[in-house]
């Protein structure tokens, strides 16, 4: 992974000191609330319902074991001994005090971590595929490009006060695992006919109040133009994006208002002056970036033998975990492993300090000391030898992280909701827990096959409910919490926005509603037809009929 050099360290030290002074000036009354607000947001600090929330950046989801241990220690000292993995691959602390923030930032900086641009109307942390660099279907490793975007966007002087937040996602594989169609800018790497790396540029995707699938801005931009082109896109957005209404300020609204062709013309006009300029990625810059992500020192392994050894493990629970939670790897004899952070009684994505410490040791022992956060609010050990999977599984069982439900119904995405967030209309976590408890029959879950269930506590859609196969959205009706259910959303491979089933439900009704939806699917499915495929084939009507027919009035 990218290791900080002296420049990175100096910049971070100066930035940490700068924010410390800003916080002290605020606490001393020298900075007014509305002046401090954008400054603290650009440093990941929210003032929330019960306590501040601090969002810690994990650049493109990559984190080292040392960083995890530091995080565990910070969460014990300054918080309540746990952290939360967000859908944008970052970590969040839910209970720090404002006064302790400078100290937390100081401790984070010691392990090259920070909260820069994890919130606010600026370019946010770039996200990518959790299997970047190891995925079997990868065309080009996205991490070097993510790192270049990180550097370009960090403390960018021109784009710190945009009309609204700006999120970039990069995907380098055949299957999109980064939801690039649901970002302000989505980038898909590919190989062009002329042998260069090309970038397909999507713009104006996003969820929130107005869910939109991104439009194609460029089919194949030579990668050397990546930075100058992004700069041109941001310039157009910074100057023309709406600032009169924050609900209409995202780039998707601008692209829709201008039309993608006219928006492209405006970008090209800006780009004329930037193209081939100093920020062009010459070979030196590209090779320099790639050097940070060279292959791990893999052993050469006879994969037939190691496969056979796995087959010999007769334990059916292990075999299920192997099937659902481990993923094909570029390197023969290795697999990537998903740790599902959705245990009973825990909010999705929460992980305790003790678990973090053990995971850090497991990363050292099994996976070259590195981990990834996923946008499904899980963690991944990316480089585990097949012959050591059984032993890893046993170790994960000891800390309750061997749940074999990766990619299934109970591996939900869920925002912090009304329990923590000041924006939420409804408490999403209790709904996720009720579903988790109701559907704990693992055989039934496997029979249902892969299903993505996403829950958001309000229409800002942090839980990505629009692109869940089953989406649940918290709404407020006359001060009461209700939940709207949608079906058929999909994040990749012909992405789609889910369709709303009908009138909303109380929290108590949701497990029954999900149950009816699943039973309807089981009754209607063709052989081997996945839930999402049945949804798209039969449409929403049969589900609607069965759900509202059985509903108690």
């Amino acid at each position, binding site marked *: 992974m990218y290791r900080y050099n002296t420049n990175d360290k100096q910049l971070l030290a*100066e930035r940490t000191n700068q924010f410390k002074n800003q916080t002290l000036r605020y606490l001393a009354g020298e900075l007014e609330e509305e002046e401090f607000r954008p400054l603290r947001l650009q440093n990941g600090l929210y003032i929330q319902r019960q306590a501040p929330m601090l969002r810690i950046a994990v650049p493109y989801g990559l984190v080292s074991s040392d960083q995890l241990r530091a995080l565990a220690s910070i969460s014990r000292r300054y918080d309540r001994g746990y952290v939360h993995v967000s859908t944008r691959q970052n970590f969040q602390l839910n209970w720090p005090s404002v006064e302790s923030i400078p100290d937390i930032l100081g401790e984070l900086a010691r392990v090259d971590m920070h909260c820069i641009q994890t919130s606010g109307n600026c370019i946010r942390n770039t996200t990518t595929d959790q299997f970047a660099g190891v995925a079997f279907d990868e065309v080009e490793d996205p991490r070097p490009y993510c790192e270049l975007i990180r550097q370009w966007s960090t*403390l960018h002087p021109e784009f*710190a006060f945009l009309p609204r937040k700006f999120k970039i996602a990069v995907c380098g594989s055949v299957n999109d695992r980064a939801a690039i169609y649901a970002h302000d800018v989505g980038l898909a790497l590919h190989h062009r006919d002329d042998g260069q790396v090309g970038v397909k540029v999507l713009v104006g995707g996003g969820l929130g109040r107005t869910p939109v699938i991104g439009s194609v801005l460029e089919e194949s931009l030579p990668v050397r133009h990546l930075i100058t082109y992004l700069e041109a896109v941001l310039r157009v957005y910074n100057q023309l994006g709406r600032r009169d209404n924050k609900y209409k300020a995202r780039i998707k609204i601008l692209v829709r208002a201008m039309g993608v062709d006219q928006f492209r013309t405006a970008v090209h006009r800006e780009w004329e002056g930037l193209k081939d300029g100093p920020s062009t990625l010459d070979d030196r810059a590209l090779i320099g970036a790639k050097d940070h992500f060279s292959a791990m020192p893999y052993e050469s392994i006879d994969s037939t033998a190691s496969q056979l050894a796995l087959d010999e493990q007769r334990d059916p629970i292990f075999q299920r975990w192997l099937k659902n939670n481990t993923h094909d790897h570029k390197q023969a004899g290795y697999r990537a492993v998903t740790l599902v952070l959705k245990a009973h009684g825990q909010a999705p994505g929460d992980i305790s300090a003790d678990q973090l410490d053990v995971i850090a040791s497991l990363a050292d022992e099994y996976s070259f000391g590195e981990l990834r956060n996923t946008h499904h609010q899980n963690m991944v050990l990316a480089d585990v030898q097949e012959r050591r999977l059984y032993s890893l599984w046993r170790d994960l069982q000891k800390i309750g992280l061997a749940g074999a439900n990766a990619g299934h119904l109970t591996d939900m995405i869920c925002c912090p909701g009304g329990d923590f967030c000041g924006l939420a209309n409804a408490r999403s976590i209790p709904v996720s827990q009720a579903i988790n408890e109701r559907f704990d029959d693992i055989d039934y879950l496997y029979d249902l096959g892969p299903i993505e269930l996403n829950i958001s506590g309000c229409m800002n859609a942090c839980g990505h409910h629009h692109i869940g196969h089953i989406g649940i959205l918290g709404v407020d009706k006359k001060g009461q919490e209700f939940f709207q259910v949608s079906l058929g959303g999909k994040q990749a491979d012909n992405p789609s926005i889910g369709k709303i089933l009908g009138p909303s439900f109380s929290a108590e009704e949701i497990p029954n509603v999900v149950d009816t939806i699943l039973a309807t699917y089981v009754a209607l499915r063709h052989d081997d037809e996945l839930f999402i495929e049945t949804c798209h084939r039969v449409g929403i009507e049969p589900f609607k009929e069965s759900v509202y027919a059985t509903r108690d009035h």
Partner: protein
Amino acid sequence: MQPVIIDGQVAKDFWLSAIEEQSPPETGRIATLAQWQLDTCLPAVILQTDDNPETLFDHLEQLALIAVHFPDMNDGRGFSMGRALREAGFKGELRATGRYIRDQLQYLKRCGFNAFSLPRGTTPAAALESLNEINIHYQAAHDLTEPLFKPLG
């Protein structure tokens, strides 16, 4: 007379603020864009953040001062206006005025502004300090031609 910061030093402001009603503006007074458009020989003009800086592009050599007025610290359009004017070749005084805070001064400087009216409630010394809080920059901007991600050969 309010002090201003020019090229990293506290200086006296010899320009008079623009007045919309005065037409044409007296000598030594900054013109509004509307006043300037009536007489493009005027040497100093102030832009609002919803003005298009390209309006001035054909006259940059005659202009001694271009000011950009920030109505609100969150209105980031002025940052792009600064870079646009510098990239179009403006060499004169580029001044930020209005409601920004000292914590934004270094970003303004990096976008090509070399002059600043003092932010509300800020001493000249504090403002000067804010201009140089961060000394490492990853990306190319007005003050740095080569981005850091291009390691020197």
